[in-house]
């Protein structure tokens, strides 16, 4: 977490040395009880945000879960970050590292998954029985939160932003859903996303050509629900539901046209952020990280997903990976082979290291995301990261499709709601539904269950400040 002494209105260009200095100065608002801090943030109009960071193939548990200095299992406050977390070690105090999380909702799902990855993927963000082998059976937590936040009309220009952080050529899995079986695909073109978010931002006031264009768009959109209402009467209830959702989306779009990019932390990034140097895949990560951070800072949305999905084979060529090495035709098979419980390559240190390198790529990307969020100051002197909760999630726990001990973590305290800087290892296994209940609560949505209610026990214990 970063502390900013003044209330700068420009996000970029801060001197890193100055930031480091400020870090040591301690918290401005940190001494206030949470409800007061929350009030303070509300008064300053600083929203709380939720970001899903999603990666593939689980992790290598022994290089992920924290240990203490003596090499034993880490405890809540006495733990050291394992090697995969080293790229974002500087944010240790912003993390809630989670353990004993389990996709319990999958256990009695009667619909068999299309493959073992879909076993977890279908439940990962929508923990309820599948709609089909490859489709989740309900709304995903991110979309649920987005809908709740905007249920009385749009509060942000976009309900959510859903990015595919690799490149359009690589594999993509739809992880977000708006209802049973209803997945959709995130944006893979950074340039398209940039143009959509920051390409033009006419102010609603005034009477120039931009305002005329805006007025034109709004007038067309405003009339369209009448057409939906008119045809609805002769259709079945189920048809009406689908059409109502469309009409509502039109109303929301019309209203959202009036919502400007705003917030003290808002600074429209220049298009130069689209060009980053270095390796194609990892450079892409940085672009997506900065786009996401800027969109959150400008309150264009409060919910975002960065799906980094499976990484292409080329991503490890720099560390000596070639398909077929260790008898693994591709990185997916390498992940299988290096599984600590059942992999045939577990005793091969070189193969284990190669697999660790795979997960380090994700970790470096995560560090870029945290950096981008933490670099942008908010009006209260804290950073966008402090007013956000980032969930690092994925479709499985380990290379061989384990669904227990999910290698998930939270970063950012959601405006002080969570007490970060800890390793939370509940004595009993916890359904990941409960984590989602906690996150929804942190976002101001008072639910007690999410998804499959039979596995829910309420918010995940021990997370709150």
């Amino acid at each position, binding site marked *: 977490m970063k502390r900013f002494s003044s209330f700068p209105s420009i996000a970029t260009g801060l001197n890193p040395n100055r930031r480091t200095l400020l870090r040591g100065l301690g918290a401005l608002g940190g001494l206030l009880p949470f409800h007061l801090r929350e009030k303070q943030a509300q008064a300053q109009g600083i929203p709380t945000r939720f970001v899903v960071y999603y990666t593939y193939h689980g992790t290598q548990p022994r290089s992920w879960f924290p240990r203490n200095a003596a090499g034993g299992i880490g405890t809540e406050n006495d733990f050291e970050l394992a090697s995969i977390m080293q790229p974002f070690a500087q944010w240790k105090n912003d993390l809630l590292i989670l353990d004993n999380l389990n996709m319990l909702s999958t256990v009695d799902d009667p619909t068999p998954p299309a*493959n073992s990855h879909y076993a977890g993927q279908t439940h990962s963000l929508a923990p309820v029985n599948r709609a089909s082998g490859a489709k989740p059976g309900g709304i995903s937590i991110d979309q649920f939160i987005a809908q709740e936040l905007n249920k009385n009309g749009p509060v942000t220009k976009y309900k959510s932003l859903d990015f595919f952080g690799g490149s359009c050529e690589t594999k993509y899995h739809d992880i977000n859903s708006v209802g049973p079986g209803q997945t959709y695909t995130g944006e893979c073109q950074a340039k398209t996303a940039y143009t959509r978010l920051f390409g033009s931002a006419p102010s609603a006031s005034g009477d120039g050509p931009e305002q005329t264009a805006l007025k034109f768009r709004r007038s067309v959109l405003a009339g369209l629900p009448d057409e939906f209402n008119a045809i609805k009467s002769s259709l079945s209830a*189920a048809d009406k539901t689908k059409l109502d959702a469309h009409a509502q989306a039109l109303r929301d779009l019309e209203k959202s046209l009036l919502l400007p990019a705003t917030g003290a932390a808002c600074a429209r990034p220049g298009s130069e952020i689209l060009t980053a140097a270095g390796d194609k895949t990892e450079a892409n990560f940085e672009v997506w990280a900065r786009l996401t951070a800027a969109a959150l800072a400008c309150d264009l949305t409060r919910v975002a997903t960065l799906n980094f999905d499976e990484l292409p084979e080329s991503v490890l060529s720099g560390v000596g990976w070639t398909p077929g090495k*260790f008898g693994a035709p591709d990185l997916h098979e390498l992940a*299988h082979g290096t599984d600590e419980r059942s992999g045939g390559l577990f005793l091969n240190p070189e193969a284990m290291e190669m697999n660790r390198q795979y997960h380090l790529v994700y970790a470096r990307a995560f560090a870029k995301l945290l950096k981008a969020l933490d670099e942008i100051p908010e009006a209260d002197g804290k950073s966008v990261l402090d007013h956000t909760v980032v969930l690092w999630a994925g479709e499985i726990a380990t290379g061989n499709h384990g669904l227990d001990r999910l290698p998930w973590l939270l970063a950012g305290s959601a405006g002080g709601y969570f007490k970060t800087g800890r390793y939370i290892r509940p004595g009993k296994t916890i359904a990941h539904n409960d984590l989602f209940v906690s996150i929804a609560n942190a976002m101001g949505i008072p639910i007690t269950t999410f998804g499959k209610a039979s596995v829910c026990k309420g918010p995940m214990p021990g997370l709150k400040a």
Partner: protein
Amino acid sequence: MSKTKQFGLALVALLGIGTAAGCSGSAGSNDGSVDDGKGGSGGEGGEGGEGNRPSACNGIQGGGWAPIVRLTNRQYRNAVKDLFPGLSLPEVALPSEPVFHGLDNDANTQAPTPQFIEAYEKAANNIADAVLKSPGQLTTALGVNCSLTAAPSTCGPALVEALAARAFRRKPESAELSRLKTFFATSQQGADATTALRATLSRVLQSPQFLYRVEVGEAVEGHEDLRKLNSKEMAARLSLLLWESLPDAELTALADDGKLQDTDTLEAQVERLLQSPRSSKAMASFTQQWLGFSRLEKTSKDTKLFPNFNDQLKADLRASLEAYVEAVLNPKTGNMRRLLTDRRAFVNGNLAPLYGLSGITGANLREVELDKAQRSGLLTQAALLAALAKPQIDSPVLRGIYVRENLLCSPIPPPVGIDTTLPEPKPGEAPRTTRQLFEVSHGRPECASCHRYIDGIGFGFSHYDSLGRYRDRENDLLVDAGGELVDVSADLDGRFEGAVELSSRVAQSEAFAACLATNFFRFSLNRAETDADECARDQLTQSLMQSEGDMKSMIVALVKSDAFRYRGTAP
């Protein structure tokens, strides 16, 4: 009880009893998004494999339910071009559609996400903008005799009316017209007529009457939960299926006369629509999805082993396979059996070496006849073989799964918690064939329980390497292409020698016909089948069996079926 049913029950029974946990399943096709070379993918489930078949298929069959259907992206783009013939139109950017059962048009998955709503708005405004740049051409395109420049206030509404009639696939009702005219008039206040018209055109293009197949239908006596589609709704269904666009003038005229509830008229119209190249394109949308062409884009090869593999070769492979499928499965003369037995290929200079052909140069594809002993149809086309392979070696697993899933609709769910890496040859160990590698790996009991259903088929492809080239030897060892079909159906099970024999056996089988029928059923009706659809699907299968695989017979049977002419009103 038909053979299809028998095999379904046999499969369920055998898999349920005789295999490891996770190795049971219902019939179904793959979800296009499912396979990512993970060495296993299964069906979506949801098929009524075990449902009790009605003893007789009497009454209305297959009037199942799907929510109101939105135009697919292809239909939208084609429709817009047909609305404004001759006019220069902007590119329409639309979000990609969710894939279900390998198909991109399932009504249940079509959520009106903000991304789609934004995209429709942008497209409508851009299109309205573009067509108003040439008012003279616009009036011609819409067949209205008026001048927008001379009499905007009267010409504008006339154009809107003409557009709505085409876009809505029926004459707009008076209430609809009055809403549009009121909107035009309101928009004219404080703006010029062109701006008002632009707004109204945009409104039409974003209206549900255009974007959705609004199907109210007519009451059916004795069936409260069913509606019979009216003639105009049938016209739209027919043209959106066979042309992926709006009805043309003849279809519209028949619809206006109420003639399209008559099955003979429908059949005649199918014949007519299939004469147009548009139907070939539309049917390719279906066949390419059914056959999983999206996996071709994901083909990658280790360029150390295959230095000639590059993006150009990949594109040529795809074009070659598209040309092949068009030649054997087009809706006019296509035949399901020929898909697997035709000896032709479409080859250019780049591709010729893959087939061991010489003397072919240049970039253009040309039709060649392949060696009958080595090649037979789709399964031996280099493009598919290369897609169903690992970057370095061929994959009996991917090939076996493909045959089971895409062609026979009997997938095997993947293993859970089992190491799937292949054994590495130890230093000094004698070279092995790919087959031997897999035989060792999958010989373990926990693997064999499932893999005998897959590898038995896949080993039949041992003659084809990772690029789809034919070989008699691998690593100096003779190739063994003996294979076995296990627990597919009584008419298919048993040993076979090589992919050529496999192809001819699958081509004749009822299981293959049933699988095509099921996929076409899903595509045509924008929904997955249910138990109640069993008779309807069986009729479709029989249309293929009785016509010896004729695609047109299947299309006619589908269009004339109750499933296509009726619609359920509730889930």
